[in-house]
Each structure stands twice: as C-alpha cells, then as structure tokens.
C-alpha cells in the first residue's frame, strides 16, 4: 500500500463515494477541468463526467444554496469552497437553511450535503487565505463539523460525512495537505462521526487539539516524553457533535488539560471544551485548564504568520506551566 497525503485521501474518498452512490455530485469553483486549486478533485471530471462534477460560476452563497436544493431532491452534493475565507457569504445558507431544513419540515425535506473547505494558516498564503473559524460553524444547530488531521482520518471521515443524512461542514487543514503521508486502505470503511481519536496515550497531561495543530501537539508530546512527561494526545476531529466523554475520561487519569487550536482564543472552540471540563471534570483536575490558541488579531500576512501560529514551543511552555501545579 502506497503512502498518500491528506489531499490525495480526500480525492480517494470522493472517488470511492461517487463510485458507490450515483447521487453523489461534486460542485465548486475550478473543481472540474482544473481538479480544484489544491487538486482535491483531480481526475473526477474525467472519470465521472460532467453530470457528476460541476464547475460553477463564482458565487459562494449560491454554492451552498444549490447544495440545499439538490439535497432536498435526494442528491448528495459534496461542494468545495476554495478557501475558508470565502465561506462567509455562504454561512447564511448553512445557518438559515441547511441546518434547519429537516427540523422545520419535520423530516419532510432533508439536507444530506457536505460543504468542504481548506482552512488554516501556515502555508504563506495571501490575505484571506489562512483563516480558521470552525467555532462559528460549531455554533450552528443541525449540522456536523468535522476536521480531519491525517490522510487516513480524512478518508474515513469524508466517506462518513458523505454517507451521513445531514449537512456536514468538512474542514481540511491545508498546512498538512501534502505531508505527512501515511498508508490509507481504500476499502470504503468510514470513520465514526461522533468520537475523538486518541493518538497517543499518557498519564501526565491531556492535550486536546484538531486540524493542523495535531502535528505541533504530537511534536510537543514527543519532546515531553524525552523529559519523562507522558502526554495523552486527543484529536477531537468531530467538533460537532462533541465527544466529551473521551476527553473527560482522559482528564480523569491525567488531571491536567491543555487545549490547542489555531483559531483566535476568544470565542474559540477551546472555550467550549474548557467550559465542559469545568462543568463535568472539575473534581479530576489538579490544575487550571489552559488554552494555547491564535491571538485575537487579524490573521497576519505571511511575514508574521509563524508568530501567530501556535507552535510546539508555545505548547511546551503552557504544559510546563500546568505541570507546576502540585
């Protein structure tokens, strides 16, 4: 089995889903002939034809809106937003329609759609090409918010998202689009959409993260291990619905938790996890819950970008602070 990158895993899952279900369609800007600006849809037009893969006009609210219409008609569109920074006009459709259609018609019309977007910084992209506002989506009722952090999880989670009967916002951390690679079995096995992945076990501290920050966090855990501190690393992967049980169970035996995300601190999804820890895990905690996050600033342009992004160094500093509590 060859090792593939996350973006290739997305492509593999799309092809698999289109193969097994003819109602699966791919829509977006430049997703056809060009195969998507990141090549996530490369080859799909040639393989499945122009009745399954559509280059749309440049209009984001429209992209989400036609997906709702197609979904109500029983299709399963997988719609690409070229960059998360251009998703904003379509949030209206997600919040006002996709997430509500089943509820407001009491199940008469449903919305089995997937809205994919590459997100996050760290690749020296132009302005507006590096944002992370997953927390905005996690606040919207009636949808799922899924963030893979490795090729295998991207494959399994995307298949699950496409097969799911409800709308899924699927955010792909583009910083890890091309590396690291790993072996992915193209066997059509979906991953669960409602549980965290424990990537590393440890008894001293729980590190909770998602997206591209999983790599930084694993690197920090490696360093800590060299210093005799064993960190448990949890990839949340499905922010909504949130599998709090896995996080609580981990904190029960570590007593400590640091949450790491790239999005701005205030109102970030780390706050939700910290609040739930305060609510349900306080008796297990031997130290405050700490968040390592992006700043509450506008995402800087590339020359200052690395100072914005949480790094293994910043994670280690936070962990040391938390370990100092007796």
């Amino acid at each position, binding site marked *: 089995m060859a090792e593939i990158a996350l973006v290739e895993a997305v492509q593999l899952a799309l092809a698999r889903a289109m193969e097994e279900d003819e109602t699966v369609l791919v829509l977006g800007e430049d997703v056809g002939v060009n195969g998507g600006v990141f090549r996530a849809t490369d080859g799909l037009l040639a393989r499945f034809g122009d009745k399954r893969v559509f280059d749309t006009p440049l209009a984001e609210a429209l992209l989400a809106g036609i997906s709702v219409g197609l979904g109500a008609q029983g299709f399963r569109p997988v719609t690409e937003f070229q960059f998360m920074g251009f998703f904003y006009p379509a949030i209206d459709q997600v919040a006002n329609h996709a997430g509500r259609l089943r509820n407001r018609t009491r*199940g008469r019309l449903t919305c089995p759609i997937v809205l994919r977007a590459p997100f996050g910084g760290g690749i020296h992209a132009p302005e507006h090409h590096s944002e992370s506002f997953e927390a905005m989506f996690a606040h919207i009722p009636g949808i799922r918010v899924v963030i893979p952090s490795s090729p295998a999880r991207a494959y399994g989670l995307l298949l699950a998202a496409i097969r799911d009967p409800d709308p899924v916002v699927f955010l792909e951390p583009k910083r890890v689009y091309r590396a690291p690679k790993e072996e992915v079995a193209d066997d059509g096995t979906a991953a669960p959409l*409602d549980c965290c992945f424990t990537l590393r076990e440890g008894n001293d501290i729980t590190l909770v993260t998602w997206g591209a920050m999983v790599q930084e966090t694993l690197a920090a855990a490696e360093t800590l291990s060299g210093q005799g501190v064993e960190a448990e690393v949890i990839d949340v992967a499905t922010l909504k619905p949130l599998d709090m049980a896995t996080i609580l169970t981990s904190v029960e035996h570590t007593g400590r938790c640091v949450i790491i995300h790239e999005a701005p601190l205030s109102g970030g999804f780390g706050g939700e996890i910290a609040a739930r820890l305060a609510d349900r895990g306080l008796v297990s905690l031997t130290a405050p819950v700490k968040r390592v996050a992006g700043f509450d600033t506008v995402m800087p342009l590339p020359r200052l970008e690395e100072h914005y992004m949480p790094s293994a160094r910043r994670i280690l500093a936070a962990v040391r602070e938390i370990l100092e509590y007796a």
Partner: protein
Amino acid sequence: MTEIASFAIEYRRFLDPDGQAVQPLPAFAQDPADLIPLYRAMVLTRSFDAKAVALQRTGRLGTFASSLGQEAVMAGTGAAMRPEDVLLPSFREQGAQFLRGAAMTDLLLYWGGDERGSDFAGPREDFPICVPVGTHAAHAAGVALAFQLRGEARAAVCVLGDGATSKGEVYEAMNLAGVWRLPVVFVVNNNQWAISVPRERQTAAQTLAQKAIAAGFGGVQVDGNDVIAVRDAVERALEQARSGGGPTLVEAVTYRLSDHTTVDDASRYRDDAEVSARWKDEPILRLRRHLTDAGAWSKEDEERLIAECGEEVEAAAEAYLATPVQPVESMFDWLYAELPGDLAEQRAGLVAEAGLAGGENDG
C-alpha cells in the same frame, strides 16, 4: 459605435381593470366557466387572509403576511404549475400553496408557531416558506438542477418579492440558471413595496423583468392583477423550462393593499389615498366583472362562493386551534436523522423539566 446588445421588455395584459378583454384570450380562458376555479382560488385566499389577520388580532395566531391585492399572482402561478413541479415560495404565497394542495390548517399551524405546519400533505417536495428574503432562489436552482440531471420534465418555481431582487443571491441563482439553462421560473411579485421601501428606491432599473437579460434569459412583465396574464405567462415559462428551453423571469406588477404583515403599520410610510386609488385595480373585482359580463357569474353565485369559502376557512381555523401543542422534546427530534449523544443529555434535561412543570405542554 457598434451596438452589441439591446433588449425590449414585453408587458402583457388580457383583461383591463373593467374586466374587458384587450386582446384575444389564451385557450384556457376562452370559456368563462373555465375561469371559475381561478376566481374561486382568489376569493378563498382573500377569505383565508382575512381570517388569519383576525386570528392574529385576537391573539390566536403569530405574525402573518397577508396577500391582499396580490391574489392573482398566487392563483395564476399555482394554476400554471403541474403537480410534479416544485414551488419555492417566499412568505405570502398561500394562494399558490392552496392550489398545490397544501392545507389551510397546516399553514395556520405554521403561522401559529408550530413546525408541523411545514410538514404539509399534498405537494411533498414543495419547499416551506422562506423568511430570509431571496435565499430560496438558490434552492430553486438546485432543485431545477436535480430535475435536469434526472432528465425529468419538471420545473421549479421560485416566487420572490420586488425587494428580493436586490439581493445578490437572487442574481447568483439567475446567473447560474442562465448558464446551465435550468428548468426554473422566477416569479417576481412586484407589489411595489418592501415593507416601507418603495419599488423605485429598490433599483434604478426600469423593470425588474430586465434583470433576467443580464443573466442571459428572457424576462417578461405582466399585469399582476390580471390572473389570466399571470397564468398565461407562468404557463408558457414552465413549458419552455420543462422542454429544455431554460429559465424565465416573470415580473407580475401588482400592489400590496395590506400592511406588510400584521406587525406593520403602513400608514407610517404611505398615504391612504395611494392605497384607496389602487383598490380599483384589484384582481378579484376584475375577474368578477369579466365573468359577470360574460353571463357566467351571478349575484347568487357570488354569495354562495363567499359563504362556501368562509365555511372552509372557519373549519380550517377550528382544526388549527384544536391541534395540541407538540411534545416539548420535539425541538430535538428533527434536528438530525439520529440525535447525537451530545444532545441526548440536553433533551433529557428538557423532558425532566417539562415533567416537573406538570406536563402542561404534552401533545
């Protein structure tokens, strides 16, 4: 200089305000008897609207948007559609929804604050009303794409207001429909007002119909108080759409005789004199004159119809008022196909709370 584009917008009308034919009538309108169902649909809608407003005024219904004066747009559109087409209404198209088979009780239930009202029997694929103005235009394009992909001879009909035509999304949807020749008809209910903003403050374009030209397809303006003109234009547009000829925009020029909704007071922004002057153009009177002149309608017919519609509406209102409230936990039960564990806890909390409160909300 070379002129590389030019356009003309047609204005169509069959009956003048006195009910006189100004040109040969289309086939469906040749025999006046065939127009009686259209007349009935308009009278029923007016009767329903009056009842709904009365229910709201007496605290038995939530905010409601009457279609007073625009009944011809609704009836003409509803009558032009086939059952297998799909209607995507905005929020005052009850007249079209009734012709499609949606029950008055269900729509009252919706406006009365109960989600089950949008789970109407009848046109199961029709969309529920759309409150965020103009956002349903893109859904219509998606529905139309579904028909096109399956090779079905069906079309989507999106009804929107003059105000909605200012929304970017409406143009986005029209633009796509043009490029892909989608089987969709955009019916613009130009009732001259978007709450307090008059038509001329909405756009500097001379007509709303011409907005279709920029999107690469045809737009036509019709007298929206002439139900024959509305039905004829929408029917033609639908035939074109179903046979692969692409989209059309039909601008129905009418007038909103009522307040915007039951929580609006239109006297704050428009003169009563303007409204009174418009009453002489209203669509029901126009068709009644036509039918009466043709000897197809009598005073007795009118009295009988009014009584019949009144009874039908009363019965629907009673059925609505007698419908028990949903169980409280229903707010959770339709969010997802299967309730995520995360939410099961919140649901259980609500159920326990409702139990403690004495279960007064039990359906």
